[in-house]
């Protein structure tokens, strides 16, 4: 893979929580490369360190050591930020979590619109783009509802729309489909794949849903904080 085609690269990422007796090594020496347009699954048992990895590369949970480069740019060297992480997050990274985490006092539309406004997309354009995304995700008829009026699945689709709103180069999703039925879950995965392939975004998805693994270009597996290649990895089979 040429360096221009690399969306995310980590070297020797290690995260240690606590110290002394309570020390937990959540992630140990994780090195990985994800190319632009690549959709990668991250499997592993609970406590394996998947969320730790995701939040580290998402620049919200600095690693203890190791480096992170996004879009060819060094962004973290150990716990040290090499860029303004906040600006970097709003421009280049989209997050989806197990819970939707919508802002409760904003409507579905406003939640998506806000993400765009934070990234300097002006009012009307932001509104139109938010509307399009929500319609695409099948919640076009609920855009003016407050989050509490939406079902868990609808909320999660609004959260996906919010994550995609700014055309991020890196999409990080931590069990995004846990609250969705299999059809809706599949739909979200397909959407990630479409964004990856059309816009060249890299997508890293933590999932337990083994039935949907076929949408991924590559499958990674974590155990005890360490990364290992998955047996069912389509990249290996090829």
């Amino acid at each position, binding site marked *: 893979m040429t360096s221009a085609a690399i969306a995310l690269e980590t070297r020797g990422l290690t995260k240690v929580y606590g110290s002394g007796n309570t020390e937990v090594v959540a992630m140990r020496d994780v090195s990985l490369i994800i190319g632009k347009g690549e959709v990668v699954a991250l499997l592993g048992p609970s406590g394996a360190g998947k969320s730790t990895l995701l*939040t580290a590369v998402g620049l919200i949970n600095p690693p203890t050591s190791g480096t992170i480069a996004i879009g060819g740019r060094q962004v973290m060297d150990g716990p040290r930020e090499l860029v303004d992480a906040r600006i970097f997050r709003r421009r280049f990274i989209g997050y989806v979590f197990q819970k939707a985490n919508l802002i409760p*006092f904003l409507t579905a539309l406003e939640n998506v619109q*806000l993400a765009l406004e934070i990234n300097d997309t002006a009012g009307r354009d932001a509104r139109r783009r938010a509307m399009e995304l929500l319609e695409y995700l099948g919640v076009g008829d609920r855009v003016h509802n407050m989050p509490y009026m939406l079902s868990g699945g609808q909320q999660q689709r609004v959260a996906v729309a919010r994550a995609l709103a700014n055309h991020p180069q890196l999409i990080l999703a931590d069990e995004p489909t846990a609250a969705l039925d299999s059809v809706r879950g599949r739909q979200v995965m397909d959407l990630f794949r479409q964004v990856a392939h059309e816009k060249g975004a890299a997508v890293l998805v933590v999932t337990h849903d083994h039935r949907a693994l076929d949408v991924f270009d590559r499958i990674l597996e974590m155990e005890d904080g360490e990364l290992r290649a998955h047996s069912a990895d389509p990249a290996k089979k090829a």
Partner: protein
Amino acid sequence: MNLALRDIRHNLVRFSLTTVGVGLLLMIVMGMGGIYRGLIEEALLLVDSIGADLWVVQEATRGPFAEVSRVPLTLEDRLRAVPGVRTARAFVSHTIQREYQGKPLRIVVQGLSWPEDRGDWLPIIAGRALGAAHYEMIADRLLGLDLGEKVPLGRDVYTVVGLTNGMVGPGGDGMAFFTVRDALAIQFDLSAESIRLERASRRSRAGSQDIGKTQPFLIERAQGPSAGIPVLPRSMASAVLVQLAPGTDLDAVVRTISAWRDVSVFTSDQQRDLLLKGNVDKARRQLGLFRALLVIISAIIMALIIYTLTLDKVHDIAMLKLMGARNSLILGLILEQALLLGILGYALGYLMGQWVFPRFPRRVVITQDDLIMLAVIVVLISVLSSILGIWKAMRVQPNEVLS
């Protein structure tokens, strides 16, 4: 997108109740200031509207508002002889409380020196000024008397010929204006029995003294009306008010009168100062302390509610930070809510005050200056009260979204 308004819409009940609470507090703060201004206005009303240049009072006293001051009515004539003096009139003022139609009626009895002063300078809203030397009165509306009403005071009956508006004494009681003679008659209104006893005692006093023994006709006089006894002093007034002719040197006149041993003289400004220092200063400090406390309480309540509103949003603030929102967005959210709370509370307080203050028993005077001052203070405490919430919000980490 304005987050502050949308969050308020979400927490409407809590926010509204807090606004009403803050509004009530600010209304009381406004009212306290208004009561103080009202006190001053009522205290100065008489001094200001009576339009005297000089107050001549009993020697070494500070005038009728501070203590008892007695000057003879003849002082009027002596003052009229001073060059530059245009008018001199007796000031007679005393408060009486009489039973009237089964209810206590408190009146500040005010003497006008008929015939020079008929009360034309009064803010008469109905009827007319005094037209006769006796048995007429001009009453303030506050006393609840009607035009033409006949009020028995002492042994005489007085007819209300005019009504004024807003003439109250320093104690907040309504004023009524009589001729000086009538005012004195009301003041020294004694029962027939006490007059009889006084005359009898005068007679026996005179009979036991040399003068009574050598001049028996004086004993006859002593048991008659007091006005018929030449050695007794004439009726006294509280002060004599002097108006100067235009272009007169005030200081020169003051110097002349000061040289008299039996009186002291104050300019109108000095009299006002004495009045404020004596009657109003303690009340001012008391009300001022209350206002300061209420402002502090308002600030604490606002800080608490803004802080709890912020605590409720910690998770959302973490999400905003995760999405890369600038600090200014989050800071603005909190600050705008605090300012809105302050401004709406202020407006509400003002509106409620407009309705409530006229129903207060004493005058409440809300001045533009006081309103502006309070508005500035409200903005300040709004900003201060948001500091706690902002401090909390700035410490929120984006990964708290996950917890």
